[in-house]
């Protein structure tokens, strides 16, 4: 049987030289992402913003969006978003946080139900009060930071500090780009997005560590190889694995995006961006070349030891 081979054996692509292009590109993209985040902001879902969300279905295509809109706008509930979703008479209604605390939030559902009348199927109702949304947001942020710190500490113990720092910079880059992506494409930022961000973080690290592992191994074996050559060799020798793994993860995620349903759509799309684009690119073009600038101890130490030995020999010679 002839097996599928995507990456040929013994590739010698000069990934490290590519850093002269990849670093500026990443810097530019990060700036764009940050700018998007600062100017457009994230499209907070009701988990973090508070408010009310109703997903309703009009059976037998009796849906008239304009009619629903005018009815609900007459309620004077402040900002109301009405969005037709799918093709079988489903509408997503979002009502912003009401002034007047928890009870006012609760009253919204009753008023909308009374307005829409009978014969409407309520598929989903979510009400998040101001106190809860504040907490959820701060838990989300704390969770992200805790995860980064915990992973950093683990890496610091398992590798040298340069690797831990390199991996964190790469990770930070991934999170910034993903947040920028979410800001630009107005993807709902809710609790599920925090889960997606954390998964991207874990996954991108997973990828970086596979290459770092190889770099460390080669550092021990080839003490005299120039750094860029060694990094290139490490990336090339793991390239086949990187590509095959990413194809499988992409296939799994693609299934989620296409068939997973709307409830996890923003999760799937975010993951797709983060894992497939940023995660892979980062570990090869950012995380690995970074090690050059951070300096890699094993090698430096080995050189220093050799120099010292050489100078001793010189002194003894005459």
């Amino acid at each position, binding site marked *: 049987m002839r*097996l*599928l081979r995507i990456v040929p054996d013994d590739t010698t692509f000069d990934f490290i030289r590519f850093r002269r292009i990849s670093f500026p590109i990443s810097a530019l993209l990060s700036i764009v992402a940050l700018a998007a985040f600062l100017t457009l902001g994230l499209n907070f879902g009701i988990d973090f913003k508070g408010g009310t969300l109703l*997903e309703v*279905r009009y059976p037998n295509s009796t849906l008239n969006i304009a009619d629903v809109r005018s009815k609900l706008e007459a309620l004077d509930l402040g900002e109301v978003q009405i969005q037709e979703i799918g093709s079988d008479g489903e509408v997503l209604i979002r009502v912003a946080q009401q002034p007047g605390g*928890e009870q006012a939030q*609760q009253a919204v*559902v009753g008023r909308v139900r009374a307005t829409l009348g009978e014969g409407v*199927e*309520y*598929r*989903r*109702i*979510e*009400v*998040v009060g101001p*106190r*809860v949304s504040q907490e*959820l947001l701060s*838990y989300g942020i704390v*969770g992200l930071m*805790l*995860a980064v710190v*915990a*992973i950093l500490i*683990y890496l610091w113990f*398992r590798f040298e500090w340069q690797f831990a720092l390199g991996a964190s910079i790469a990770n930070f880059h991934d999170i910034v780009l993903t947040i920028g992506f979410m800001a630009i494409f107005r993807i709902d930022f809710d*609790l*599920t997005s*925090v*889960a997606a961000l*954390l*998964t991207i973080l*874990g996954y991108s*690290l*997973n990828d970086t*560590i*596979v290459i770092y592992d190889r770099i460390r*191994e080669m550092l021990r074996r080839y003490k005299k190889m120039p750094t860029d050559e060694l990094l290139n060799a490490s990336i090339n*020798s*793991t390239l*086949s*694995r990187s590509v*095959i*793994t990413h*194809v*499988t*993860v*992409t*296939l*799994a*995620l693609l*299934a*989620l995006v296409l*068939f*997973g*349903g709307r*409830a*996890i759509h923003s*999760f799937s799309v975010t*993951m797709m961006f983060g894992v497939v684009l940023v995660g892979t690119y980062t570990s090869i073009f950012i995380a690995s070349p970074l090690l050059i600038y951070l300096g890699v101890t094993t090698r430096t130490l080995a050189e220093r030891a050799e120099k010292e030995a050489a100078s001793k020999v010189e002194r003894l010679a005459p």
Partner: protein
Amino acid sequence: MLYFSKWKAIAIVAVSAIICLMVVPSLLPTKAYDHLPGFLQRKIVLGLDLQGGSYIVLQVDSAEVRTARLEQLRDDARRVLRDAKVGYTGLNIQGDAVQVRVRDGQDVEAAYTQLRTLAQPIGGAMATTGQLDTDVTRDGNLISLSPTSTGVQARTIQAVSQSIEIIRKRIDQLGTTEPSIQRQGADRIQVQVPGLQDPSRLKALLGQTAKLTFRLVDNTMSPQQALQGRPPAGTDVLYSDGNPPVPYLIEQRVLVAGEDLTDAQPGFDPTTREPVVTFRFNTNGARRFAEATQANVGRPFAIILDNKVISAPVIREPILGGSGQISGNFSVQEANDLAILLRAGALPVPLQVVEERTVGPGLGADSIRAGLIASIVGAVAVALFMIATYGIFGVVAVLAVAVNVGMIFGVLAMLGATLTLPGIAGVVLTVGIAVDSNVLIYERIREEARAGRSAISAIDAGFTRALATILDSNITTFIAAAVLFYVGSGPVRGFAITFGIGIMTTVFTAFTLTRLMVALWVRWRRPQRVPI
């Protein structure tokens, strides 16, 4: 590395099989499941997003707890001073304290001693902290009682516990299966009712304090006069629930309260055919109600629920039997719900709904279908790709991943964990990542073979070298999953559970099952070169 003793091989297969089989009870119909022995009665619970239902978070407001305590202190102070025969003026709540002015300077000491008995040690009489829940201070002949903040805190926690009991009694009456009521933090209660279609009824049942009192209507002036001027001492103006609300002037003194009810049932009035609620008092309540109605024939009294007047009938004759009925333009369901509320008892303080999520059963079913389709499509695509890339080794990988997924569901069942929609996403992602461990191993084997090793030695070295990397990369990912689990709630948690379990089963299968299968293959074929 490639050698497995017979017993080790059997143990690996047995452990994998048993964990996979733990999923079987979850797939059985309820009837068969109930016949299983106890240790097998463990199954995956479907989250509300998959089976439909309501999730509500209620909060006890500590400001309400303070207010309730102040009102109780005011009433207790009135009783204590009356029993001690101390003359006083202006007993009322001022800000965060109850204040009272003792009329005669000679009585101040006695009043102070008596009022101090109202302060109770925090945590009950057995507590050893020595802290009191109320500060009692005096300034001349003005005595004030104010609840301490630790006292209010302790009462808030206590109110949550009491509320959970009462909520449980109320929800049990709805007749839904497996409701879950849990404390969340110091001041919140999380209620999950699977399969409930109409959350508004649940909210109506939980959102009411259901404090019922019977009090006399004050006839000395009209409610309108009282609203314009000042209501007489010891009275309040309360409104009916109707539209427009009708004001009533009501005495503060309570004839009988809801605690003295022993039973309440919905029924129909024999003459008007209207839905009513009939109730029965305990001995104490019956005696007090009889005395009060005997003394006030011809006067109206009011039935008040949560400070709203339900009805205000005139006492035509003394009610001695200890039972009666409440009528008030109820629908059948309203009468039924009021009876439930009265039977379950009043909440110690009002609760506020701070979060609500309801998923209709239709959407839940759609989500299960979507999740299943995505999982199957994803798994098939990955399997085909792996077999195309690695041939027979690809088959090994697919088998390992299949067992892996079986084990994830098995562990979920053993833990009795909840499977949510994001949880399914976690499984799909695990499939993608589990494949990575196989890819790492196979690529390493290929490398070793190309470096000139013999087939068996290459396979052996490939496993040894790759497993270290697999461990490193999976531990970091596991840290992210663990953090997700601890800080996350709801959907995030559901995802973290399956993802975390998936990482563990992935490492397990990579170290044991994949290796065992490859080892068996090597023994069977004795390959001269690596087939990948």
